[in-house]
């Protein structure tokens, strides 16, 4: 009886495979065997620079913010409000000048576009799934997620202004 069952299982599997399963199996074998190699070949330089230190001033990220123009002069009032929001909503995971649970925001605008920063604040769930930089950051920070703190666009903009004051 046991044997019959085994045989039937084999039969079922064969049947399933014959319905287009073969190709998938091939793919899997390749990706298991050579997973690391293509990554290294494709982006050899970037893997050496951690995502937090990479500079990308063109990527605007994914989310509600598509275009932001920063005034030459920092809006102090907005920055002060931003500092307050940052203190309330962000300090559980971020320190201004050092790596904590997440990366430090000091100098962020030398590495990222303002749109990217705001989208990371406003739309972190989609960002860490789709944006290549956000994805790499999630891995660099041990899979610790960027929490969506439900900031308004106005508050997120103020936090960005505050980041401009961090040197």
């Amino acid at each position, binding site marked *: 009886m046991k044997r019959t069952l085994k*045989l039937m299982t084999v039969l079922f599997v064969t049947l399933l495979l014959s319905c287009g399963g073969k190709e998938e199996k091939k793919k899997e074998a390749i990706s298991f065997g050579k997973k690391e190699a293509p990554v290294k070949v494709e982006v050899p330089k970037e893997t050496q620079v951690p995502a937090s230190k990479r500079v990308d001033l063109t990527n605007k990220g994914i989310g509600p913010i598509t275009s932001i123009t920063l005034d030459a002069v920092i809006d102090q009032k907005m920055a002060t409000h931003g500092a307050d929001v940052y203190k309330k*909503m962000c*300090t559980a995971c971020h320190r201004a000048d050092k790596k904590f649970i997440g990366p430090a925001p000091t100098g962020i605008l030398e590495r990222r576009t303002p749109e990217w920063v705001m989208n990371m604040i406003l739309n972190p769930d989609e960002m860490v799934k789709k944006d290549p930089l956000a994805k790499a950051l999630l891995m660099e920070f041990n899979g610790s*997620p960027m*929490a969506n703190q*439900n900031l308004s666009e106005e508050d997120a903009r103020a936090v960005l202004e505050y980041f401009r004051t961090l040197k």
Partner: protein
Amino acid sequence: MKNLLKINIAFIFVIAAFTSCNNAKSSNGKSGALASNVAEKVYVAPGEHDEFYAFLSGGYSGNLTVYGLPSGRMFKEIPVFSQFPTSGYGYSEETKPMLNTSHGFIPWGDSHHPDISQTNGEIDGRFIFINENNTPRIAKIDLRTFETTEIIEVPNSAGNHSSSFVTENTEYVVAGTRFSIPIPQRDMPIKDYKGNFQGALSFISVAPETGNMDIKFQILMPGFNYDLSHPGRGKSHGWFFFTTYNTEEASTLLEVNASQNDKDFIAAINWKKIEAYVNNGGGTMMPANYAHNVYDEETHTATSTMKKEVRVVNPSEVPGAVYFLPTPKSPHGCDVDPSGEYIVGNGKLSANLTVHSFTKMLDAIENKKFAGEAYGIPILNFEDVLAGSVEQPGLGPLHTEFDGKGNAYTTFFISSEVVKWKLGTWEVLDRQPTFYSVGHLTIPGGNSSKPQGKYMFAMNKITKDRYLPTGPELEHSAQLYDISGDKMELLLDFPTHGEPHYAAAMRADLIKERSQKIYNLEDNKHPYAAKTDADTKVVRKGNEVHIYMTTIRSHFSPDNIEGVKVGDKVYFHITNLEQDFDVPHGFAMIGQNSSELLVMPGQTKTSVWEPKQVGVWPFYCTDFCSALHQEMQGYVRVSAVDSDTPLKWSLGEDIE
């Protein structure tokens, strides 16, 4: 050779399976086609939402469960009168006061009849009320948060059963006593019950904006058992109707002694008249002692206040406010149709269903056609108020609901069925069996002037073979019927939790739109909240240690604490800093003598721990919160009573 044969057989089997699948759609089998039709009616595809909410009382679980219809899926158990370790309700410092009573802290209750608030006679989905039968209380649940936000104890009451039904503008939620008792309570022989015990019917006002409850007055009625009740509506708005049994006033072997009278009464109460009397200073403030427990959503904390007096009214003080309608025979359910004209007395030992007419009742009162009086309360003639009888519809009628299309649906416990009949002609239109021994039934929008038809579900007392057996104890079973056609159609069985005595249901949209996703951190006014990482600290006050702790994916702050001593009382005040939908964090401390906490985004909850042994003791997050959930942990160092380990706390000191 043998194997080859087996392979062949197996192959044939596989082919057969596939072939038969392909043929299923063209099957002519009547039951098959019908069955698939029924399945479609209750199928809610993955990710889609049910059309109705159903709130089923938990009976002896003390809670309220939330289901979706037509799928019969359970979404939530709302803790109301019982401690609930799943969330920490009744264990956390903030929620313990919710279960305070004049008898002290009570960890359990028997919840019976939920009813949703109304505006202009229609269900509005703001609040749901439910009664505790054993230690009389009424609770209010806010349907924005699905949390119990207020519980008021009902003094002078015992067996709070004819409760908690709301009037058509939620002016009152009404609570009647099943057991009559000496009022005020006193030491007296039980055999002197007759003529000495009384039954209190309590009218609890509900503030229009906040929903705050307050006992406006209690009517002290003769010592009968007040079994169930419903408000008048439309033309009968301003009246309330209560079934009674044990008009014999027996105190022992009620099974026999309370079934002697051929007819008991439905008590008709003109509450508007009594309200006016009370508003003019009528009634007497009598000493009492009852708890009023209110949960504040901003401090996330409940407070319990003992109230010391209650206003009571004797019916004799307000002539023309209370009448008795003779009703055969130990009536149970007391149900008022959507128009407010018909009052159905479900005489549980009677062969016929009795329906009274509100218009005829007013007429009889107008013409002073009284058959006599009981304790000064006029008794009307049965024939004068009778609208009609449904002749021998079944055995043991209990409860009736309405579909808003002129039909009524009554449950019959003994014959185990639901019978559909027509208001006005009293003819039986349909009957369907239930499995087994049905108690209550619910049609969405039930207690209102606009029932929402479409579905009806029966809540059964006996389950037996309906599901896979689970030993001697079985969850009660419910059955969902489609009532949109002429005949009721059984669609679905679903198990319930505890014993659902009654349920309130309504279309989902009103509640769904208002359902809250998080608590705003900004609005958190908990005195021990740590609203930012900078607020985290540990404070010693004598042998009390207060830890102001935060959570966010995925760490506690602080997560290393030293300087706690054996014999200390350690308060963990946990604030969840998350502001995203559905990201609670849990908290559990080894050796804690209470339960874990489940803290919603923006909320603060407190758990007390009294360490008994020296050592380094871990705590952790109980709710899987992120990929790093397993890393969400911390340690408390506990030193000897006489040690001088300094109080220290930190998070990530060794992070570069």
